[in-house]
């Protein structure tokens, strides 16, 4: 068994506001193997984006990592200094944000931004910069001519591709992506995801992909982390979770997606709404919306139980978990 590329143990992130401290991520643990595509799914307030920022060490006040470790290539990133992190950034891991328009500098050409990135994390020669920039643009399917273009001159889909190209400049082993397709139209989304998968196969990097879209996760990821209210609700291999979802929330989510094919049937969705993290329900955080709620759910907080190769945070499985042990 190869060593895991990334190991996250008990990561906890709080937002310190003047009225209250809000725990956005609560003791999240997971691993990422080399070359693996991990999908992190959840709705608003589940903490998936905060988790991403926490792992990539990109949190800024009032958000702060208050516990846990993020071990990447044997080093705990939480404890590293900014200088050491800078060494790792882009060479070992890179980040693709949700909106290219927010991440790209509107005043500089794409080529200039690539150059900045390359120089910021290494010392390439002008020739190397030029070659590599053209190389990554071709990889993502954009004509290198566009290195001269400014972000607003490119379409939304092309901008996102440029972001991915930028993330691959130093061929990192891990690329962290925060909903890179959500601002795109459906066809561009599909096209971009296909390209990402292609690149992953050819370059061998691992991906942590945060999204709200279950269909993207079902199609492209190897493993899935379902998050709810700052905690992991269920974690398993993709096929396992889609064939046999264990957590009532996961089941509810599966049922909330109408499909274009297959029989037309009435769906139910999940009543209520994700909780306000400053005012969490007692016991299991999902119990007010759960169709299989039991009396004990209102007072006891479930741990993450292992059932076979699935981790699920639900009191329905306490017995099974004990049996497996």
């Amino acid at each position: 068994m190869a060593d895991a590329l990334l190991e996250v143990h008990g990561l906890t992130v709080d937002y310190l506001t003047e009225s209250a401290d809000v725990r956005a991520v609560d003791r999240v643990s997971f691993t990422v193997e080399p070359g693996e595509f991990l999908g992190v799914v959840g709705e608003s307030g589940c903490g998936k984006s905060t988790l991403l920022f926490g792992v990539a060490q990109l949190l800024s006040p009032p958000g702060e990592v208050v516990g846990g470790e993020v071990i990447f290539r044997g080093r705990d990133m939480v404890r590293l200094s900014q200088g050491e992190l800078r060494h790792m950034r882009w060479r070992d891991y890179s980040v693709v944000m949700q909106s290219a328009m927010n991440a790209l500098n509107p005043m500089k050409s794409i080529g200039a931004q690539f150059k900045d990135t390359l120089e910021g994390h290494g010392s390439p020669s002008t020739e190397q910069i030029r070659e590599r920039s053209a190389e990554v643009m071709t990889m993502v399917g954009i004509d290198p001519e566009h290195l001269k273009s400014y972000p607003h001159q490119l379409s939304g889909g092309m901008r996102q591709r440029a972001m991915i190209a930028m993330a691959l400049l130093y061929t990192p082993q891990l690329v962290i992506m925060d909903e890179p397709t959500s601002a795109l139209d459906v066809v561009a989304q599909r096209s971009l995801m296909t390209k990402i998968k292609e690149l992953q196969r050819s370059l061998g990097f691992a991906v942590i992909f945060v999204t709200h879209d279950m269909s993207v996760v079902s199609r492209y990821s190897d493993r899935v982390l379902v998050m709810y209210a700052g905690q992991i609700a269920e974690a398993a291999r993709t096929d396992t979770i889609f064939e046999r979802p264990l957590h009532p929330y996961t089941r509810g989510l599966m049922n909330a997606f109408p499909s274009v094919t297959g029989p037309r049937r009435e769906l139910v969705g999940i009543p209520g709404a994700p909780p306000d993290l400053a005012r969490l329900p007692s016991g299991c955080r999902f119990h007010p919306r759960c169709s299989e709620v039991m009396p004990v759910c209102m007072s006891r907080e479930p741990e993450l139980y292992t059932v076979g190769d699935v981790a699920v945070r639900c009191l329905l499985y306490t017995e099974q978990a004990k049996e497996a042990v």
Partner: protein
Amino acid sequence: MAIPDISIADAPTAADVTRAPRRFRRAVLGNRKALVGGVILVVMAFVAAFPGLVAPDDPQAAIYAQNAGPSSAHLLGTTMLGQDVFSQLIWSTRLTLIVTLVVTAIATFLSTIIGVTSAYVGGITDRVLTVLIDVFLILPVLPLLILLAAYLPPGVTSLVIVLCITSWAFQARQLRSQGLSIRNRDFLVAARARGERGIYVILVEIVPTMTSLIAASFLSLAVYVVGFAASLQFLGLGNSSELMWGTMLYNAQQAAALEAGNAWWALAPGAAVALLGTGFALLNYAFDEIGNPALRPVRRRRGRRSA
């Protein structure tokens, strides 16, 4: 367009959109500058309301020793005519404050209505009103004054008229900008779509969302008006028999108070004007915080929870 990621940071928190009065109180009490400003204004208001409690002497009684220096009987000395300077100062507070507030209120009202209407209605109306605003902004005040001084009788009424004319445009552009930024918000489109009249939309749907900005405009304008009113009176537009700080300055100037060695008579009203202006300016800091959450201090709580 699929859902943007609505993380907890995006959803408006209770802190952002709490009711205006509560937010204001919290901002004032939490902000030292605003608190000081508030105190100054409260004191001024008290003095304006109950001058007799502070200075029992008749401010216009010319019965004391002339040009006397400060003493226990006359805290700030006396004028050339033998009036108590301190009494005059205190009793002038009321009219000065009233004029300031009335002018600021009228000017703020005008600039709000014109600015917001201009932004909301758009088109030709917007162009015409913008030109109007610009004209009044660059109006050369002194030539206008000289002109008006020839026709208007000196006194408070003329002062109010002149001040209103020359200061309403001050904030109109800013309020127009704000109006432009929200005119396409869905709730305004919805109001039009359900058939509301334009006037209704402006007064009921738009203006209430701008209360912070209007209040901040009011305070900024008040600072300006306080100083400008005093300046105009100093230049002779006021009626020297009216009790205002500006007219005190005028009288002191006419009597060559500084040369005569009666510095307090000349300086005290000026200091009072500065203090009132400062009060308004400091209170305005409360609105900086409300308007721009990024300026709010991040108050860390002592002691962390363990993971």
